[in-house]
């Protein structure tokens, strides 16, 4: 049995320890906001925050997550209010098809917590997620709109 905190709530799952965290989230816990894109840690669609760090969940064995804190896109909204990053994403019309955006938002959330006023270089280094709709410009605008607010 593996135990961890998911979005501030304790959860237990009975799966093989090498099972990727992504599959546990999506298939066992029905947290489908975190997306599968490539399965090899390249695209970032599966990004979650693991003990404060943006992490590609498709490569993270659930055994390693035991006892840790996992945040997913479903956990950002609190008391009925979207996070400031989610709000900025909507205001700046970032999503197109939207499939990669959970990962983008989680990577940005981790970045902003660590560096509240990131430079363009920091953003480029931290947000290495693929968006095939090409929303990179809007992502950057949205991040700057938060930091300037």
């Amino acid at each position, binding site marked *: 049995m593996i135990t961890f905190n998911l979005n501030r709530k304790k959860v237990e799952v009975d799966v093989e320890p090498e099972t990727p965290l992504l599959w546990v989230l999506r298939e066992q816990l029905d947290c489908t906001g975190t997306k599968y894109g490539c399965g090899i840690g390249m695209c970032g669609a599966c990004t979650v925050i693991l003990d404060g760090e943006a992490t590609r969940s498709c490569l993270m064995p659930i055994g390693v997550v035991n006892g840790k804190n996992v945040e997913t896109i479903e956990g950002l909204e609190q008391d009925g209010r979207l996070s400031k990053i989610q709000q900025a994403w909507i205001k700046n*019309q970032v999503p197109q098809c939207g499939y990669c955006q959970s990962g983008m938002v989680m990577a940005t959330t981790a970045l902003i917590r660590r560096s509240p006023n990131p430079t363009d270089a920091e953003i480029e280094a931290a947000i290495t997620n693929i968006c095939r709709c090409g929303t990179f410009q809007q992502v950057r605008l949205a991040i700057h709109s938060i930091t300037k607010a």
Partner: protein
Amino acid sequence: MKISRREFLKTTTAAGVALVFSRVSVGMTGDGVNTGSQPPGWAGDPGEAKFRFDGLAKVTGQKIYARDFRALDMEGWPARETYVFIVRSNFVDVQFMGVDLTILPGDLKPLKVITAEDLKRDGFGAATREFPEGRYLVPKGDAPDYLGQPVAILLFGDRRAMMHARSLLMANPYVVKRGRGVKVPETFAYAPQSNIIKVVENRPYPMSDKVVFSQMQGGPANPEGTGERNAEAKKYRQWIAQKLDSEADWKVYKRRYSTQMTDPMFMEPESGLAWYEPQKKTLHMVLGTQSPETDAVNSAEIFSAKGCKYGLNKIDFTSCQLGGGFGGRDSSIFCLYLAIAAAYADGPVRILFDRFEQFQSGLKRHPSEIDLAIATSPDGTFQAIRNCVAFNAGGRKNISIYLAEVAAISATSVYGFPLVDINTRALRSPSVVAGSVRGFGVPQAVFGVECMVDEIADSLKIDPIVLRRKNILQPNSAISTGAKVAPPGLDEMCQLAMKHPIWKRRRAFTETRAAGQSKLHGVGFAVTMKNYGTGSDPVFAGVSISREGLLTVTTHAVEMGTGIDTTLATSTAKLLGNNANKLVLGEIDVFNQLKLKESRGQDVTDPYWTPIVFSSTKAAMTSSRTVFGVEQSSKILFDLAVLPAAKLIWGSNAKTLGANDVLWKDGSLTAEGFRDLSLPELAAKIYDTDAITSVINHAFYRGGWAEADYTVSGKTFRYPIDALGVKQASAKTHTIIERKNLKSYTTEALWAREGQTMSAAAFLVAVEVDTATGKVQVTDGVHYIAPGRVLQRALVEGQMDGGYAEGLGYALLEHLPVNDTGPSNGFWNLGQYQVPLAEDCAIGRIEKVILPAESANSPARGIAEAVSCPIAPAIVNAVSNAVGFRFRDLPITPQKVLAALSDAEVVQ
């Protein structure tokens, strides 16, 4: 979350099977009401949205994509799923001799192995509508038709078993057993090929109207065909060839170019759920597709062959939001494997392609071989073009002949040539199957021309943009078919680019270039046009007003991630002064009140006839077609209800006021000398007088909008629609208004009149080349588009961002081999296949220039594909400018740059 609330779109039949379409609800569209889940305050001023409706769902991770759903999410379905893995071949030159699953341990053995022999025994047929090839699995003893062709479908009892088995099977080349070698079939061109021959007298440019031969004069011709017209086309083809070889006054440039196979790489690999209920003979399907109707019809057809063991009366088809598509989910064969697997499973099945499988099997962008010749006068006046583009379609015809047809129209790029000889063809080959990836063949067709224009300019020592302007098509001038449909903006973009500081840097780069520099810089430009719409586009659209003055837009169209809901909700503002308060997307039932009958022939005497009643939503139709329909209903509601109500309120002094005498201002209707009227006040009068409160229409575009006269309350109006229904406040249903004097265009109208509609785009770009690594980096640029009337600026800019990134990947990064080392081997993923990241895209340094609409009546043009077409040739021209070597084969990899640098051919 149970999917109990779906939007029911359409009920129809195909091959004797009832097809019921529905869609998972997202945001405002909901079950036809405002669900409250859209972010508050979306609406800006009339005609503007502050943000997209679907934004909330997409930034909160809501369950909206096919991959998110399981059987237990579907109301009434058994919860237990069977998981599917499709075994594929990676050879075409030996017999397939079955699958060897002995490497799977006992707990990973499949429950069932479905083979070609099973399909034959059980009487499955071939889908005929778009996929006439059949052979969904390779029979034992036969050689596969193409690389990656499925050979067996395996069913597993749970996801874990499927995933573990998949890992083992895909890594092992001996799973698919091989027999003796066989001869690979010869490559041939799928019929028909596309040919455009045009001959204009009284050269040189500007051309006269004295066209000797063109599509406009007699329709398409095939120089290889029989008959007098085709013989004449052949004669002209030969004559043009002779002149290209022997005309003494011309400079003739002949080059070969090539473009590579790429993957659309939409982010959500294809996924789906299906459940076949044998007792009810019903197949339920849940998937994300760009062509739901085609997928459902094809699925019905394979079950409908005589003697099929699996009877089918109904398909219940649920569409989900698309995690990207870019054409790669248009007419994908994925749906058929889902349907077949469901038939053999005991309960629901689920297919979850991983990225390796998606590369292995997904539709690809056609690689192409381009054989191009352009002749100019010494002063740079273009005289003749011969552009032959061979598209490698792979092992299935799919929609490749239509793609080649569209490519032919754009194969002269944006220039006027007195002599034109175009041949485009889709070749059958053993490669992975290609499909309608963004641009639909035009990026390939224009690539050679836009690169060669730069080469000619350098050769003639003319500025490349000056040369372009010398030959560029002016608005409404004749394109290669002879149709006068050249879009506005082409020359304007050239002029703007010439004045831009980036272009001015080009000369400086060239002059300061010296041996031994660690970084080389170059600037490139390209300008292109792309048609939009599909050629025959039907639209259902309705607008109604409530007693409180709230507007509702109703249409058959569905949201595919392109922002159609946001666009439609603002499209009432132009004629009714206010945004829609409510959207009902994917609605069909209300339009059944129009009682339309569909047939392909012309039957203008039947008041209910139309060429096509309904077709599935396509991204290219949002702005150009669906908005048109909504605007017609808005206009009719204005003419028949809003303006009369205003005149009643304003009194007898307003009796002579017409539509041109009033103006919407800040949501109110205004007229000089009269008080402003709000929409709620007007609505109250409309209801008090039992006037018309709802308008529904059917519009049809085919080389022009069908139009007819409609008489209401003794007044006759002519509207560009072919069916009209109106509902009074007190009525429960709509009344059909009889149409008279219908003008409806034939299929031939696409060619015989100015049927094609075009959008212009251009790209100016600067690059930096690292001479040590060969890496090319875009440093800055300007992206131009002439969309006509802009419906939502943010959506236009979003498409420009996407088209740019996609074109950049095409120019510099993305490449798939067409042989057995390519994606069919099952080892391709994002480790090998590089797509652009933020660091590649010069974020913040690509200026977007949206040219203003030419007039208040400018159409809202389709732009999603147009914006991507000039990107790759502009980048290639920039790199050629930097390196001093003409690159003619995509993509320009660092290896190619280094090779060129070591043996540079100086062209400046």
